[in-house]
């Protein structure tokens, strides 16, 4: 084994649940020395990824340059503030916070501290969405008019996701990806109308529909689903403008297909994260973008303000669901 290069980036993952395992390879790819602290599951994570474990958050903060906050959403603000106070740059899993003011406070704190706050809106790094965004920027569909986004998967297994007071529910935790995409592609949102339907014990099956109006006049529909047990992760979009239309459906595959006999021998379904094995890992690209910002000062693809906006629009959707009214933003 070669010695670490001088000045090697030290990254600390906080919380070693599901999403941390998607992020960790990105840090390793970026050449970072990986550290971790978690209330649960830290040993298994350290074993899998070769991370250096710490007994408490302060010890980890003292040892690293940048943290990656992968804890359940309610704990994001406290941990991010603590990391910024310690002078660390921060990558934080989405959503930044469950309350808009909390999210705004985090961004303001990062600006005051002169540190990066990078909300991990990973869908901006999925190559399909990135390609569509670039095409829209160069005018491939003209002025965006009617956009549709769908996201389908199983409800995450960890119980806190089912609790809307902790996860924000399907709109705040899952659909926020597509709310962010709609805003990224069609601009700021002026109003939100949303409906949600829940079934099963603890709402184990949930779907939500959101209609957005954008400043430029575009309208968007986002449909989220935490489906029946065994639901395979799937994401689609349809982007219509006055100069053309772009469409994508992850069910169209990645260039590798299995027949029914072959599928029977594989486990599939029940996923709450997409299978990214057929593409450059969006999670790794996301970490690389954060690292590039730290190393070169380049503008990150997703800013703290973007993370705040996504939370604000998701909260407007939740208010619409609660009141039955269209909510102005």
């Amino acid at each position, binding site marked *: 084994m070669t010695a670490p290069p001088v000045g090697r980036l030290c990254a600390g993952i906080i919380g070693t649940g599901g999403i941390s395992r998607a992020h960790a390879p990105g840090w390793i790819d970026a050449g970072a020395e990986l550290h971790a602290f978690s209330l649960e599951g830290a040993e298994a994570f350290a074993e899998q990824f070769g991370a250096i474990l710490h007994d408490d958050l302060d010890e980890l903060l003292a040892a690293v340059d940048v943290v990656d906050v992968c804890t359940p959403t309610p704990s994001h603000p406290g941990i991010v503030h603590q990391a910024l106070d310690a002078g660390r740059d921060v990558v934080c899993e989405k959503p930044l916070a469950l309350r808009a003011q909390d999210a705004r406070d985090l961004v303001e704190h990062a600006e005051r501290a002169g540190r990066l706050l990078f909300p991990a809106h990973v869908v901006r790094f999925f190559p399909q969405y990135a390609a569509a965004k670039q095409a829209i920027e160069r005018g491939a569909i003209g002025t965006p*008019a*009617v956009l549709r986004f*769908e996201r*389908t998967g199983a409800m995450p297994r960890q119980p806190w996701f089912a609790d809307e007071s902790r996860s924000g529910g399907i709109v705040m935790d899952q659909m926020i990806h597509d709310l962010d995409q709609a805003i990224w592609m069609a601009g700021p949102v002026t109003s939100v*109308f949303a409906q949600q339907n829940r079934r*099963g014990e603890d709402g184990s099956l949930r779907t939500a*529909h959101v209609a957005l*109006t954008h400043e430029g006049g575009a309208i968007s529909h986002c449909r989220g*689903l935490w489906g029946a047990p065994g*639901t395979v992760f799937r994401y689609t979009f349809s982007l219509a403008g006055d100069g053309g239309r772009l469409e994508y459906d992850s069910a169209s595959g990645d260039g590798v297909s299995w027949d029914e006999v072959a599928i029977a021998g594989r486990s599939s379904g029940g996923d709450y994260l997409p299978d990214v094995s057929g593409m450059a890992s969006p999670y790794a690209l996301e970490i690389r973008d954060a690292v590039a910002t730290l190393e070169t000062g380049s503008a990150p693809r997703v800013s703290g303000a973007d993370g705040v906006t996504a939370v604000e629009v998701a909260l407007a959707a939740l208010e619409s669901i609660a009141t039955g009214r269209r909510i102005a933003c």
Partner: protein
Amino acid sequence: MLTADDQVADRPEHAADRPLRIALLSCAHTHAAGYASLLDAREDVDLVVSDPDGFGDVHVSERSRIVGSHEEALDAWSHGPDAVVVTSANAHHRDLVLEAARRGAHVLCEKPLATTVADAEQMVEACREAGVLLMTAFPVHFAPQVASLREAVARGSIGEVVGVTGTNNGKLPTGRDWFTDVELSGGGALVDHTVHIAQILDSVFGEPQTVHAVTNRILFADRAGDGAETGGLVTLTYPDGLVATIDCSWSQPADAPTWGGVTIQAVGTQGLLAVDPFSQHVGGFDQWLPYGANLDELMLDAFLDAVRQGSGSDVEPSGEAGLRTVKIVAAAQESVRTGQPVALADL
């Protein structure tokens, strides 16, 4: 009261023994040409088409006739037509349907049934009083894929349905500018394209409780008339919590190889079912060769069968189904005006 049955019984030849006398009124709608062609090809139909606007692009064989006025078409037979097919601009549906009912002729009326709820109610009532059939022309109702959806939901194959996303996207109709002249059409894409999916939802799930809609006028903005929306998203909520959204936009690019399409995705507690009635085609670079069932033909078959059976028969989608979808459009338009969801009961 004189009913259509009485009139037919009075006629020298009973309708069962001779070709049905069909007047297709107006060539304004883009579907007129297709219906005329199918009716013209049938040995059991005697067809007269009126083209008072002089579109001149609906063609029939020597078996049929094209005349210059609705009166000429309706007066083409001494005992009047057995049935009329109304394919005028939307705002003219009411007067033509009322005239057909007055003459005791059964009616197949192009969708949307009317441009206002009051007109649609008057049409349904007039046909009921006259004892004539009123069918609303929803060809997609006859798609085998839509039948599969109806059967699957009825059998509970996907459990309880909790959400639906329907799309009816197309090109802006060409050569028929009235489609976006709100005086003649009643509105834009919201009026033209919401009703197809709304009728299918109506046949499966019944009436929604509230309707919310957002629209814009970005697509085909250079060709759409003033005030005609070209993009729209309509969200329906049902008493049991079902939420359904219809994308009614004219969002198919003008140079696409096919006119557009219809898709319906139903999400149930035991899985997801998606149907695409226009999916069957042979493709290729810039090619689209449809080979699926001819839905217009299936619809006309159902209508003509019902006409032969007479006024006691039922035919779906009925005028009442057409009326219910007109109410949904009216609620969607009201929602666009108010910026808030509209309860159908408040309409």
